[in-house]
């Protein structure tokens, strides 16, 4: 079930009212049932993977929480949990290489497609195992609480990937009664997320798909602009999804960390990765980069750690050459930035603005690799660097394209204004978030009307659901 489906719009109010009317001791069980329903409705067979991760992570947590467990237990536990994810990730390129027409047999009801959210809840489960092993989180013996942690409704389909320290204590704690302020913030997040996805991301998607899907037909500037638009599309798509996930959690009385903090204002890729898909970046930092030695080692080793971490990031998106190149490209840029005087540049506004724009351009260029097939990336890069002005411009003379461009510009202007306001006047926006004035109320009513009038209603799927 997608956050932007009518199913969800009907499901959420029923869930919230039932949840808050339900006696406290039954709430986790109710939420677990709702999470499983929410997750399994499109493909009931997805439940097999979910049960595997529940069971293997529960056993692993039990195993590593005993006195002085050896490291091998942790490895076995983590591998056990990651097994289905690794299988499906590796299966895709193997099938492409050896069975171009597809596998002759399928899994009934699943047909070999990647189970939704498997990459996210597997990492969430691994976080719990490692944190219990390290003593950062207490083991909760309740199977219901454990299962709820793994398949928490707001995050089960596509993250954000929570650390055990963010969520487990909230599940086990006595959360108490309905928090009106939190519910209002959650509702506002849901509306803002919907706006980001339906009005901005999906509108940009029309242009991006038209150009990057057939890049060889266009000239270099058109393809470059499409790559910039792809950055905006992914940002608004996943930030929109994250806002809706956090908003849903808020309505159920849970607090969740931000997953995006105005990444388009980053000065450099190093900073960008502390603002973009924060939950994955921080997971990789805490469970891959730091265990490898982090930055407290010799420079060459730190560079190697960075490249390894970003490679893992790329492969998490898909075991494909394209994603590996995307990960390595980002790793290389972050590595290079360690040798630049960024601290000094930060105090010089002109250099800061220039480097921020350059960072977005580099990030967009690297997104040429953010596709399943390397051939598509090669086509895009070939057009970008060899074609110049030779080739088609996106058909700006047609009314439909003009209308799309105007809608894109209008949607992005609202996002940019809000991001500028949040970046430079953070306290004002925080009080706006908490405020319940008539102006705030009308702002969100207007956002809903914009969704109705200008939203793209036909696409429905979030980009990150495919990972």
């Amino acid at each position: 079930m997608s956050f932007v489906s009518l199913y969800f719009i009907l499901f959420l109010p029923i869930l919230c009212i039932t949840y808050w009317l339900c006696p406290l001791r039954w709430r986790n069980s109710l939420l677990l049932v709702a999470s499983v329903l929410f997750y399994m409705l499109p493909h009931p067979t997805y439940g097999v993977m979910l049960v595997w991760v529940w069971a293997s992570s529960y056993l692993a947590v039990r195993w590593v929480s005993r006195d002085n467990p050896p490291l091998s237990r942790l490895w076995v536990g983590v591998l056990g949990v990651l097994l289905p994810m690794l299988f499906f990730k590796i299966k895709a390129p193997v099938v492409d290489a050896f069975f171009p027409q597809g596998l002759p047999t399928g899994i009934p009801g699943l047909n070999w497609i990647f189970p939704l959210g498997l990459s996210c809840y597997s990492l969430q489960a691994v976080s719990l195992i490692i944190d219990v092993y390290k003593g950062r989180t207490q083991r909760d013996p309740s199977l219901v609480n454990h299962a709820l942690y793994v398949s928490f409704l707001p995050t089960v389909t596509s993250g954000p990937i929570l650390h055990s320290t963010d969520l487990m204590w909230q599940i086990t704690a006595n959360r108490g009664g309905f928090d009106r302020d939190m519910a209002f913030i959650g509702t506002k997040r849901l509306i803002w997320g919907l706006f980001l996805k339906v009005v901005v991301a999906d509108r940009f998607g029309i242009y991006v798909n038209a150009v990057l899907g057939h890049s060889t037909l266009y000239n270099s500037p058109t393809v470059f602009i499409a790559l910039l638009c792809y950055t905006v599309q992914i940002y608004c798509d996943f930030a929109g999804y994250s806002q809706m996930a956090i908003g849903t959690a808020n309505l159920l009385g849970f607090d969740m960390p931000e997953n995006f903090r105005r990444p388009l204002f980053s000065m450099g890729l190093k900073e960008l990765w502390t603002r973009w898909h924060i939950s994955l970046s921080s997971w990789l930092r805490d469970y891959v980069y730091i265990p490898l030695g982090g930055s407290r080692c010799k420079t060459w080793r730190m560079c190697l750690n960075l490249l390894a971490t970003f490679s893992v990031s790329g492969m998490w998106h898909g075991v494909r050459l394209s994603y590996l190149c995307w990960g390595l490209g980002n790793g290389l840029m972050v590595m290079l930035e360690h040798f630049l005087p960024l601290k000094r540049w930060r105090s010089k506004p002109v250099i800061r603005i220039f480097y921020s724009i350059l960072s977005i351009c580099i990030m967009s260029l690297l997104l040429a690799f953010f596709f399943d097939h390397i051939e598509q990336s090669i086509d895009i890069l070939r057009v970008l660097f060899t074609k110049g002005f030779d080739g088609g411009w996106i058909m700006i003379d047609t009314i439909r394209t003009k209308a799309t461009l105007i809608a894109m510009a209008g949607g992005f202007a609202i996002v940019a204004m809000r991001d500028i306001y949040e970046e430079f006047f953070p306290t004002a926006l925080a009080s706006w978030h908490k405020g319940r004035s008539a102006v705030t109320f009308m702002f969100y009513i207007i956002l809903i009307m914009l969704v109705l009038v200008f939203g793209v209603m036909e696409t429905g799927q979030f980009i990150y659901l495919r990972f």
Partner: protein
Amino acid sequence: MKKFLTIIVAGFLIVTLLDQLIGRGLEKFFSSATVGEQGHLNHVLKDVDAPILVFGTSKALHHYVPQVIVDSTGMECYNCGFEAQGIMTNYALIRCITQRYQPQLIIYDLDYHYDIEYAPYTNNVVNVRRMSKLTIRDSLLNAIDPWAHLRMKSRIYPYNSALIELVLNRFQNSTYDNPEADRGYIPQHNVLDQDAIDNWNPPIATDTLRLNLIANLIERYHDRLIFFSSPTYQHQPRLDQMYATVKKLAEPYDVPIYVLGNDSIFMDKPELWDDIRHLNDDGARIYTAKVAHLVKLWLKTHPGDK
């Protein structure tokens, strides 16, 4: 919680009210449009009363010259083709027009991609949502999307995403506002590049919903329906397979299907083509003459109330 719910319900009521108000405004604005795709739609739905009507995708729009048919048959003809609109829209259009009057002949230009192939992304039904007078509108939309009845409760929804385009139409001509347009036909004058290659070779996968609509069309209008399939620029090896299912559906009702793809008059003749899918005006006139000849033969055996 009570206060929270009160504000949420108040918000919902305001949104509903605004949706109804803005929706009514959009309905008036769209139904009065005389330019662009919406203007073409309004004209076809409200004013067209020719005895011979042509339906189909952009191929219909650019391939059938009504004047040629008029000259050949002596009967008035109108081209009701729409860019990128397959059987979903055309079935609705035909049903909507026949609520108003009964044409003597319906020429349907079949396009495998938009009318038969399983390709859900081309299920473009935005125009159907705006056919407020169509009595089967809701059931047709529900067949495509089970939530359509709920979505259509919103008055804005039928006009979603189309406002900017309609406003721009007031300042810039669209395909449909071509000054050379004649009875719905839009001529094109490019000449195809000699090196153009048509490597379109889609998989044979039929869409049940689309075929049901074609079957319904045949059953309902079999006494006044002819199917054509436009020429292809290069040889299409699986042409017979593509249209086999429709032929099977049409056979019991004696509805003729003329698959004119792979016709040597048009194949590999770039001077007759605007692009690899569409004939230019010269090609369209030659093709329509061929169509008109077949129509004339059909009219001889189906004299109707001419």
